[in-house]
């Protein structure tokens, strides 16, 4: 890979080269595109907007909790605020962020295909995603939803807010992700370039394949469950409502049958991103390729058999609770396999602390904390004390934000030169990665403590225990830092899209078809020449590649660079 290093001719791309971005400039060409890369960019814009809405709701929650008595919102509005935060973040951001943005953009590039198997279906799923998002937004404009993102019956059937509209929106979003998953499955199975065998696939593809399987098998169940709630509200059919003869716990069963695997829909693609980043910036082949690949599939399948650990305190039987508890502990094994393999990959590597690598390292630390606290919640006896407190809030934020969003931001920074053909400011990248890490821990670590002390989740005051205010103020301060950490990439990346330095086809010296055989940004058909894969993935060599990337030179003076 010496050709891509800075001291050997930085293959300067003539800017007037055709690529997918300048193929056509009209708005129509974007809105009716079937190019997977443009659809990825459309998703990028969409999820950023939804993330912003969710983040505003989060900020309101944090501000409210700085006082034991509440300062900003009434109880009803607070309920709607945390519902908005949960619904936007889960259904409109986390579930789609990595698969739909980076997955859409990269899967055909990584396997050497010209496009997804069903490009028009791909576009349709974006429109469905937007329709779902607009309906959810409409439901909040028309008065909001106060049942939380879990929509537990009978609260959601009795509530007089805009729940039906919101559920229809989520239903449509769900089918959008089903169509995306169908596309991924067909693409990964049938569209691989000649020579791209299963064991030559990047681990990113393995994890997206597992994700697609989970989406296919889980999403329809939650779709029908939420549909039944709509029917119950609309027509008085009583399938879940105890007043009408149903069993509300059945709703929880069916809801978590999807929503626990949904956690893996969020985290598995992040695993894939981290696998790519760690190998690239350690300059070593991944350690235990097959273990990581199969642990993705193991997580996908075992993830379906643990939903009951959300229901230890419902009227689920203790016997079933025990079984779910045991399977949950088993599920920790494949996740741990991945973390160990990443760590071993770095051992004796030539590590570059570039922006994506900082996010990846942050991911590993935060996911470790998130995962291990998950084990406290997986044991029935400790769960009885901790469930429904801020401990659980902190736990899943460590996994979701510390896992998925770190992975997402790391992936965006890693593939940014590929997506837009420009490089961002490495210095600002590193600074904001550090800010996110610090802000994140400051926000959520106090929540572990206050949750352990007994602060219930979804309460908007705690006048009964004003001593908790200290932790809440710490948390709110941290969330401000975190907010800055999320705003900064928004600013310098947007700047870089228009004004950044031009990037060569392979600024990181990374392996993989998308770096080695496609331009930055790629042309509409992805590859100039037919692709033939002859070697295994990740054949990095730490000794050969101990030099700096072109990307790093700019900031080398300021931050000391490497060495």
């Amino acid at each position, binding site marked *: 890979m010496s050709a891509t290093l800075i001291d050997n001719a930085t293959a300067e791309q003539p800017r007037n080269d055709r690529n997918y971005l300048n193929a056509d400039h009209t708005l129509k060409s974007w809105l009716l595109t079937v190019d997977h890369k443009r659809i990825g960019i459309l998703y990028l814009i969409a999820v950023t907007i939804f993330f912003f809405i969710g983040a505003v709701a989060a900020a309101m929650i944090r501000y409210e909790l700085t006082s034991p008595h509440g300062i900003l919102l009434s109880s009803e509005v607070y309920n709607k605020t945390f519902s908005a935060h949960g619904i936007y973040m889960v259904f409109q951001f986390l579930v789609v962020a990595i698969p739909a943005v980076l997955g859409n953009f990269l899967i055909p590039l990584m396997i050497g295909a010209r496009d997804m198997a069903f490009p028009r279906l791909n576009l349709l799923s974006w429109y469905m995603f937007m329709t779902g998002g607009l309906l959810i937004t409409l439901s909040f404009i028309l008065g909001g939803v106060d049942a939380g993102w879990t929509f537990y019956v009978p609260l959601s059937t009795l509530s007089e807010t805009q729940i039906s509209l919101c559920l229809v929106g989520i239903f449509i979003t769900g089918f959008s992700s089903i169509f995306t998953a169908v596309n991924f499955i067909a693409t990964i*199975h049938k569209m691989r370039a000649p020579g791209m065998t299963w064991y030559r696939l990047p681990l990113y593809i393995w994890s997206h394949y597992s994700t697609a399987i989970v989406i296919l*098998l889980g999403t329809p*169940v939650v779709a029908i469950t939420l549909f039944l709630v709509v029917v119950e509200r609309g027509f008085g059919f009583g399938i879940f409502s*105890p*007043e009408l*003869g149903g*069993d509300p*716990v*059945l709703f929880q*069963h*069916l809801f978590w*049958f999807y929503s626990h695997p949904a956690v893996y829909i969020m985290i598995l693609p992040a695993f894939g991103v981290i696998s790519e980043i760690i190998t690239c910036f350690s300059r070593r082949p991944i350690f235990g390729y097959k273990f990581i690949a199969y642990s993705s599939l193991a997580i996908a399948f075992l993830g*379906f*058999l643990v939903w*009951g650990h959300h229901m230890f305190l419902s*009227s*689920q*039987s*203790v*016997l*079933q609770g025990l*079984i779910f508890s045991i399977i949950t502990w088993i599920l920790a094994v494949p996740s741990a396999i991945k973390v160990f393999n990443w760590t071993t990959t770095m051992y004796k590597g030539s590590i570059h602390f570039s922006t994506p690598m900082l996010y990846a390292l942050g991911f590993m630390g935060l996911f470790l904390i998130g995962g291990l606290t998950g084990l406290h919640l997986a044991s029935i006896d400790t769960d009885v004390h901790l469930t429904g407190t801020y401990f659980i809030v902190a736990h899943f934020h460590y996994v979701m934000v510390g896992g998925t969003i770190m992975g997402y931001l790391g992936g965006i920074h890693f593939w940014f030169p590929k997506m837009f053909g420009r490089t961002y400011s490495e210095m600002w990248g590193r600074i904001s990665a550090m800010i996110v890490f610090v802000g994140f821990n400051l926000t959520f670590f106090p929540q572990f403590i206050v949750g352990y002390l007994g602060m219930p989740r979804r309460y908007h005051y705690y006048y009964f225990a004003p001593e908790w205010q200290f932790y809440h103020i710490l948390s709110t301060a941290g969330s401000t830092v975190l907010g800055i950490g999320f705003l900064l990439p928004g600013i310098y990346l947007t700047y870089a899209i228009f004004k950044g330095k031009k990037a060569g086809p392979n600024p990181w010296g990374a392996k993989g078809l998308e770096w080695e055989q496609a331009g930055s940004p790629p042309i509409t058909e992805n590859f100039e020449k037919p692709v033939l894969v002859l070697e295994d993935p990740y054949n990095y060599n730490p000794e050969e590649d101990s030099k700096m990337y072109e990307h790093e030179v700019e900031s080398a003076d300021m931050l000391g660079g490497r060495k």
Partner: protein
Amino acid sequence: MAGHDHSELTKGGAHPHHVLPQGMIFLIAGGLFAGMAATIGAAFMIPEPLHSNTFFMQSLALAIAIFKACLVVYFYMGVKFGTRLVKIFAYGGFIWFFTLFIMMADYVSRPLEPVPGWETVPSSALPRNTVEDPE
């Protein structure tokens, strides 16, 4: 395009790998309608005491339904002649369906609990303010 190329092409896959013959379609159709007749016949003509044995009757009805489903999936939907990939997806979907039934384990094992649950206290299915004390 030369004629030679064209023949190559058709051999390569312009035509399907397997066409279900007409006789076969009729045969399967016969099986399906026979299955339907058997379902209805079983529901009304099986004598006592078997007729009031819910488990037997239900198993019989489901067995016939599964038989019919297998005919449709194997032959009409072409899984029997499909690629290995199609087979994996077809079987996988139907097998995964049964993981949902793990939920039944919860309801079956609730009576084993020392504390009365939802099913042993019928009144708990009433609105909360009307729940009576289960003694």
